[in-house]
């Protein structure tokens, strides 16, 4: 498939140099007494594919919830293309496309109805929305399923519809939280390839949260989150050299203290 997130006539090279796509400064968040995020700071440059790597429970989803303004951090600041998510949430959110870890399509509605609903939530009228939906569904070969209820789609198809939904309003920054969980190898590879193409062809910025180390390979930047703390931030080569390791698996083991790398879904 060839996903396209924006019109080619709207390049933003001037902006790319000026401001970070996402900037977190000293973000902390607690669930009661338990610290989910502890003084996390990083920034993502525009048009980069950034992987947020961490085991289940590391704080990835909490971080996504804060960036998407589902709730506010106790301390620190989050900026999306320079817009503070708390003070200018509308301006920040309109530039975000989000694919949550949990499936968020309405199973009782059709693919088209789900996508039109999302378009309306971004103030996009039906005529324009229909045009974009047709283009995007055509790109992922799901045009023939457009009037089908989401309940009837496979897991991979649901995920792909969720991704094009996140692109429908043409965001500048795409957040994907464990987008390939539960998918087969082929579907995973296809989605990764397409997202990577979005970055290179359309200049969209991507933050890809995963606990799967083999998805790090294509990243421009890697963030390693462990027990709510950011323990590494940089290109793969930088992380390898700073940890004195040869593979990202070894680096991750060294950074997190996990020795049994066969356990990818949680702490051994």
């Amino acid at each position, binding site marked *: 498939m060839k996903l396209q*997130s*924006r*019109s080619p006539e*709207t390049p*933003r090279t*001037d*902006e790319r140099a000026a401001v970070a796509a996402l900037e977190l400064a000293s973000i902390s968040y607690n*669930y009661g007494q338990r610290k*989910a995020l502890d003084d996390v700071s990083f920034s993502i440059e525009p048009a980069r594919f950034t992987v947020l790597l961490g085991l*289940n*429970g*590391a*704080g*990835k*989803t*909490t971080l996504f*919830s804060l960036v*998407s*303004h*589902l*709730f*506010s951090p106790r301390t620190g600041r989050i900026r999306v*293309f320079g817009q503070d998510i*708390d003070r200018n*949430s*509308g*301006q*920040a*959110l*309109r*530039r*975000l496309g*989000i694919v*949550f*870890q*949990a*499936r*968020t*399509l*309405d*199973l*009782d*509605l059709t693919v088209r*109805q789900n996508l*039109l*609903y999302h*378009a*309306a*939530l*971004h*103030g*996009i*009228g039906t005529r*324009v929305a229909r045009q974009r939906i047709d283009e995007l569904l055509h790109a992922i070969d799901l045009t023939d399923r457009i009037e089908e209820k989401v309940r009837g789609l496979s897991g991979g198809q649901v995920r792909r519809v969720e991704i094009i939904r996140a692109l429908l*309003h*043409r*965001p*500048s920054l795409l957040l994907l939280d*464990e987008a390939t969980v539960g998918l087969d190898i082929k579907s995973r590879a296809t989605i990764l390839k397409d997202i990577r193409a979005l970055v290179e062809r359309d200049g*969209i910025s991507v933050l890809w949260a995963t606990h799967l180390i083999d998805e790090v390979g294509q990243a421009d930047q890697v963030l390693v989150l462990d027990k709510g703390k950011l323990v590494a931030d940089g290109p793969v080569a930088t992380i390898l050299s700073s940890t004195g390791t040869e593979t990202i698996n070894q680096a991750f083991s060294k950074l997190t203290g996990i020795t049994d790398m066969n356990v990818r879904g949680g702490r051994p």
Partner: protein
Amino acid sequence: MTDATDFAGSSREKWTGFSANQYFICLKGILVREWLRYLSQKERFVSSLVRPLLWLFIFAAGFRQVLGVSIIPPYETYVLYEVYITPGLCGMILLFSGMQSSLSMVYDREMGNMRILLVSPFPRWYLLVSKLLAGVGVSLLQVYAFLAIAWFWDVRAPVAGYFLILPALFFAGLMLGALGMLLSSLVKQLENFAGIMNFVIFPMYFASSALYPLWRVQESSPLLYKICLLNPFTYAVELIRFAFYARIEWTSLVVVLAVTLALLGAAILAYNPARGLTVRKQDMGGSQ
């Protein structure tokens, strides 16, 4: 570059916010989605009608001879018990519909659909009010379907009353919908919703003027009478009852509007990201 066809990501021109048309598009989208969900749940429509009809056909018929209703405003003559409880049954539909919307919001939150609404760039208060209006729209349809059936059962009000109750139903629906919205922010899990039935719906319904005139209640239990007076549902029912006869019960109108504002304000506050009430650990899909 701020019209509906705008590329949302561009920031080379200063974004001045959404236009009125885009606000309307958003509202329409939420209304349509609520309507489509309602149509896809036919059993919801049937059950919303069966409940008040059972009260009308069985309960009211059985109690007609037992419970005498004297001439009290807005009635100018003796009325059948079925006629007396019809406004209360309209209120019952709105009450259950409000709670159904609440249940739907808890379900949406657990299933994740709620997040799509909450990450919209429109102001959160606007999204919640739109959601509330969508729920009220659906409940009004249910009320009129009930009244149509009641008409054929010879339970009738003046024809004009069927039009005049619309604002009363709307305000009552807003109040009960706002209550449901507030509850949805407080209910942690879908399983806890049964408690809502026992602790909110039934007490509100029974401790009101829906089934018996308040003077009757006062005769039998002064305490219950005071509770009924404190119950906002009483005022919603009276507002509807008077509207049927082209009269405005001002006290009821003021109470309903004031309670609506208070509940809606509390619900918006409860869904404020800074309060952290809407997204708890368990709402994160089991992850962190």
